[in-house]
């Protein structure tokens, strides 16, 4: 048993030998550079890139005599750009240049400055850089007699267009959502924050995937220590591939053994912009519409972007409602079991009679009933998410009929339990970012409640609170502003104060530059107008 545990431990620790496939070519170093001969260089690159059908090697003549070659990755390089802005000028327009310069010994500088009609061009002789460029959709121009290659940015591939995200639906607010394209994602952010202080730092991760990541923050607002920490945590990642931002999340999070997530994510540019403006940093991952934001506080799950777009009164009620829903969804099965099996004296008599009559003939103890219903609900939910949409409907009908009605009339499950579980289910969808944790907590508290009743619930809640208090996310206490208490930030916790009343950034996050706006921004009539009105009335 212990050995088994230790084995799991060592596996989790990642102690197994790092082995690299011996078939892979040795990694390129900065020392591998191009030579002057075109054919030599082409051979070199062919060797490195392999004979894959999607690598295009195009040899041609610049002007009439200068041998050159283009190398690009079919599908990732934009063909129109390659054809019209590189090939055409080099092959035809070069003759116009040739009238003034001799093409035969035209140097790479002249070509670059006169003929390449593309915005982003770099020159390099490092093979590693050339190969990486080619793999990310850039076009490599090699010229005979030149030991430098021109790397032309011709990136352009098929992407999904910007649509309304499936998660985080809002009634009022921007409808655009991030896509899988890193550049268009950062562009959406730039459009929200038109300030050069918005800094984007690129990191490339993944030995095989070479995924581009982008750390976004506002210089002067974000805490430099936070950025340093993010950089450090990201650079530590040495894995083969980053396929989704979830990979990053698991490698950088503070509390890998906690069920509580300490890295936030969002699909909406306005949400990410708001978080960055509070002093957080965002991590964009190429290939994923989900952008990570750190630090993440527990309270963030209860805040929706719409809270800030609608007026404060209703927003505050909704905020409170979310807390209520959180408690309903985590506590109600446990409370039901505790009350109906331990503390019947707490139930009003009339209700107790109804509950007792509903439980008459039910074969299972209340806790087993609750567990069965809870598990069935989780299964239904999972099935609903995974199944293709047309089949999903069938599932919901079967689910509603079987667990909603048939189970009760067959006498397997008491009707109150169905109500409790249904309530729990609906309530858990009110706070989408904490849905996973709610399921875990629900079962945990339920088990405690089934053993010790309300004492058990209290113990479970205490344990959870202790755990929550011990968590941190990138230096910020997870439970702030509640613990440690920062009274000023309570304006945006259980209620949402008017925007003009929230002049400071959250203390635990934006303390580097706390002031968000001027004080005294409450709407008011201009003094001169007011005087005028007073005199007329």
């Amino acid at each position: 048993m212990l050995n088994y545990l230790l084995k799991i431990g060592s596996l989790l620790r990642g102690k197994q030998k790092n082995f690299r496939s011996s078939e892979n070519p040795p990694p390129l170093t900065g020392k591998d550079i191009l030579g002057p001969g075109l054919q030599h260089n082409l051979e070199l690159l062919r060797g490195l890139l392999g004979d894959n059908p999607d690598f295009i090697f195009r040899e041609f003549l610049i002007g009439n005599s200068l041998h050159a070659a283009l190398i690009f990755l079919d599908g990732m390089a934009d063909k129109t750009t390659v054809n019209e802005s590189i090939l055409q000028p080099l092959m035809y327009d070069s003759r116009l240049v040739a009238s003034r310069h001799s093409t035969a010994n035209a140097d790479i500088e002249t070509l670059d400055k006169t003929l390449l009609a593309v915005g982003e061009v770099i020159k390099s002789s490092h093979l590693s850089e050339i190969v990486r460029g080619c793999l990310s959709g850039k076009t490599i121009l090699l010229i005979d007699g030149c030991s430098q290659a021109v790397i032309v940015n011709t990136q352009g591939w098929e992407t999904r267009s910007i649509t309304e995200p499936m998660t985080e639906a809002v009634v009022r607010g921007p409808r655009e959502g991030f896509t899988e394209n890193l550049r268009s994602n950062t562009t959406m952010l730039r459009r929200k924050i038109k300030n050069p202080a918005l800094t984007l730092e690129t990191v490339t991760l993944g030995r095989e995937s070479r995924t581009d990541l982008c750390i976004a923050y506002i210089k002067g607002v974000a805490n430099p220590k936070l950025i340093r920490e993010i950089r450090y945590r990201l650079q530590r990642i040495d894995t083969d591939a980053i396929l989704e931002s979830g990979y990053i999340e698991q490698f950088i999070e503070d509390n890998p053994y906690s069920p509580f997530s300490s890295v936030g994510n969002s699909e909406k540019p306005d949400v990410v912009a708001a978080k960055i403006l509070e002093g957080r940093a965002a991590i964009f991952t190429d290939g994923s519409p989900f952008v990570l934001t750190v630090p993440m506080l527990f309270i963030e799950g209860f805040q929706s972007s719409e809270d800030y777009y609608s007026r404060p009164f209703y927003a505050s009620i909704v905020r409170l409602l979310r807390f209520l829903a959180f408690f309903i969804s985590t506590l109600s099965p446990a409370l039901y079991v505790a009350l109906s099996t331990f503390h019947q004296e707490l139930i009003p008599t009339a209700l107790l009679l109804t509950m007792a009559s509903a439980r008459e003939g039910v074969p299972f103890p209340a806790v087993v009933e609750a567990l069965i219903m809870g598990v069935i609900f989780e299964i239904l939910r999972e099935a609903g998410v995974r199944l293709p949409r047309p089949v999903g409907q069938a599932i919901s009908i079967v689910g509603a009929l079987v667990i909603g009605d048939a189970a009760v009339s067959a006498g397997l499950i008491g009707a109150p339990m169905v109500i409790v579980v249904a309530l729990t289910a609906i309530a858990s969808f009110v706070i989408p970012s904490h849905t996973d944790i709610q399921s875990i907590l629900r079962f945990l508290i339920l088990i405690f409640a089934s053993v010790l009743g309300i004492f058990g619930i209290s113990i479970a809640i205490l344990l959870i609170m202790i755990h929550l208090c011990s968590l941190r996310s990138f230096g910020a206490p997870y439970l702030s502003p509640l613990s440690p208490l920062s009274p000023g930030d309570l304006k945006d916790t259980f209620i949402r104060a008017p925007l003009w009343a929230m002049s400071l950034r959250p203390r635990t996050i934006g303390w580097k530059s706390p002031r968000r706006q001027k004080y005294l921004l409450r709407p008011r009539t201009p003094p001169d107008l007011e005087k005028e009105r007073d005199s007329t009335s």
Partner: protein
Amino acid sequence: MNTLLRYAALTAAIFLILSASAGCWSRRELNDISIVAGTALDKTNDPDIFRITAQIIRPANIGTPGRGSGRGQEKVFLNVSETGTETFEIIRKMARKVSRRLYWSHNEALIIGEALAREGVRKHLDFFYRDNETRLNVMVFVARGEAANTLSPSAQLESIPAYDLYRLSKIQAVNSLSPNVDLRDFLQTLLSKTTSAVLPVIELIEQEGETGLAITGAVAFKGDKIIGELTPDEIRGYLWITNKVQSGIILIDCPAGEGAASLEIIRSSASITPEIKDGILQFTVKVREEGLLGSQNCPLDLTEPETWSALEKKQRDAIYKEISLALKKAQELNTDIFGFGNKVYRRYPSVWKNIEQDWDSIFPGLEVTIEIQSRLRRSGEITRTIVPE
């Protein structure tokens, strides 16, 4: 990591051991308990043995709407009787007849048979105060005749007689013609050496061929025994003095002409003040009352202030009469149902020490001054009367 795993394993082990060894402490499923709704205590022919009847709810017969079973056809309760010498013994013995454990937290009525109450109830009630399931807000009644019989009338609104009785008792506040006593109040009088209780009396009545249950009056206790019965006027007087009148109707004759008027009590408060003057213990009972003219059948001109003062005088006289009747009766029976002794103890503790032993001889001769401030506030929706002048 290693330590973390060890901790996790340890925690899991502790949790498993704890939950397995402790069992599920006091866990009982709803269908493992039988809810007791009401209890009746009765005397038997054997002086050492008494009988307890428990009204138990049969949840299977409580129809849940939509399932279409039960309701009306079958009884939703079951009365179980058992005899013995001690309360808890009898209650445990009921397991011979009831397949589920009795559950006492929702017991709402405790009915004591008249015969038993005349002999003294103190020794039978210990369980109801001591046990952790029983509550102190159980309503206490004295039944005319056998208490067990009052648990199965047929004409009632609630499907469970004990709960019907509980609600019946609560609604009596609209008349203030019977006291509302729960176990806590009763316990206080049982613990006191001088103060005694007044308990409401219930009896079965015939109406339209069905047996119904009615609260018909009240009995005064001396200690834990019935000592006498109170008339409605005396009951109201008792309630006035003890500040328990909530609402009610004061019936008066018309100040002028034939007919009567009903005055509704809307607010009342009372205080009892003991005072020692020249070495003599005296009591002042102050009652403040506000009423309104509820209905009348006399030709009154309510626009005249004189009519109002005449009505107010009648009201005051009626209250005075009720209070003095109650005082007279209590002194005749020599039972301190008002808690006068307790008031002396609070105000003159040192004096009380000396007179406590002799309270039985002092109480009947006590001088009590009655002060009444009563007002008539409104006359309802109309000022004129529909009775011709």
